[in-house]
């Protein structure tokens, strides 16, 4: 197996890495780029803990080959806040206590950002279905949904986006 050289953009930074052909984007982020904010919960696209954006499209990074990142633009949890200034979504997750253990939180925040970019004014039902691929075992989702709805309202009201 020869290693593949990949040139890509992660959270706006031009980066390069070497990967094995079988490795996933999740492997590359965590093991080659040391960006461990993206989590692995299942490795089969069933839990959403590894959610990232790939050219602005929400995907499970465990179901993307690392080599596919060539020339793409990737968005991870590490790029959601502006240095130490939290994104509204992050702030709302904290205010609403929308996390307990926190393992699903990076994926949920990345997914929520994608949701609100696509649909700034989602209904509760739309929110619940959009986020159905992000499993949370701790919260029962109640506070997560409230945080997302509140973030959406704040962002529509001209809060920092």
């Amino acid at each position, binding site marked *: *197996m020869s290693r*593949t050289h990949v040139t890509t953009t992660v959270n706006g930074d031009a980066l390069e890495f070497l990967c094995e*052909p*079988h490795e*996933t984007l999740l492997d590359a982020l965590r093991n080659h780029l040391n960006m461990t904010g993206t989590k692995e919960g299942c*490795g*089969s*696209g*069933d839990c*959403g803990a590894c*959610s990232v954006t*790939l050219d602005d*499209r*929400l*995907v*499970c990074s*465990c*179901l*993307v*080959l690392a*080599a*596919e990142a*060539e020339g793409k633009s990737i968005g991870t949890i590490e790029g959601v806040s502006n240095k130490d200034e939290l994104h509204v979504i992050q702030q709302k997750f904290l205010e609403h206590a929308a996390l307990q253990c926190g393992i699903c939180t990076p994926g949920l925040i990345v*997914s929520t950002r*994608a*949701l609100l970019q696509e649909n700034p004014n989602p209904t509760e039902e739309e929110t619940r*279905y*959009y*986020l*159905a*691929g*992000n499993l949370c075992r701790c919260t029962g989702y109640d506070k997560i949904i409230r945080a997302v709805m509140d973030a959406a309202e704040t962002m529509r009201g001209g809060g920092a986006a």
Partner: protein
Amino acid sequence: MAVVEYKAPKTIDEAVGFLANSIHPAKAMAGGTDLIIQNRGHYDQPLVVVDTKHIDSMMQATVDADGLVLGPSISCAELTARDDIKAIYPGLIEAAFLIGSTQIQGRASIGGNLCNASPAGDTLPALIVNAAQCVIAGPDGERTVPVEEFCIGVGKNCMARAELLVALKVPRPAPGTADAYLRFIPRSEMDIAVAGAGVSVTLDKNGKCTAARVAIGAVAPTPLLVPEAGDALIGTEIDDAALDAAAAAASAAAKPITDRRGTEEYRKHVVGVLTKRAAKIAAERARGAS
């Protein structure tokens, strides 16, 4: 399987060349949502992946007077956002929308769904009721296969080595036609269909059904076109009696197995329920359209 080589061809010829000339088994990949899951362990089973997403024609969808020409590798997310396609084939778009989560939608494609040849693939019954044709390219040129003949067994399709699904052609439906697709899953999302049913009906000005196709999924080794179920609707106004007859025909045609997703008995029953409900929706749509 373990991926040992990744290829990103820009043309169909190049892709077919990679598939034909690889020393290891080679597979075409679109969104990879099925294929990459299989890429775990088993390093003794090497696999070459040929990514089809860099081939322009496979990533485009055009609608014209003849119907839809669908690049098989377009993601469901992109496809379901296409109002022009949804206006003509609402059931097909519904089916595409049902595949997996938002994240999966961002990657999964109708072509991949079809080539994976799972009996439970959601878009398959919807393609069948729309009489889609599969355009297959290979070392010896192109051929076309009706979609209901594409899958030949669980996980098996009719393509030979080095063949590649390069387009899906979906004819423009006759006036007064509409489709619908429904599936049954235990939860509200994220499950594989326990059973699925696609229905397309054509109604005349008086609301009488002049043509109908019913296809069912997850109840046999391959998705099934059920002519008896369509026949039960033709000539009726799709009233309750016709719907019940179609449901019964679908249940009778189903040859399901019992597995972790449902029992044989349950699947036979539910596929009838879905057929009835999908036919009702399709008929309402057709009435609205005509």
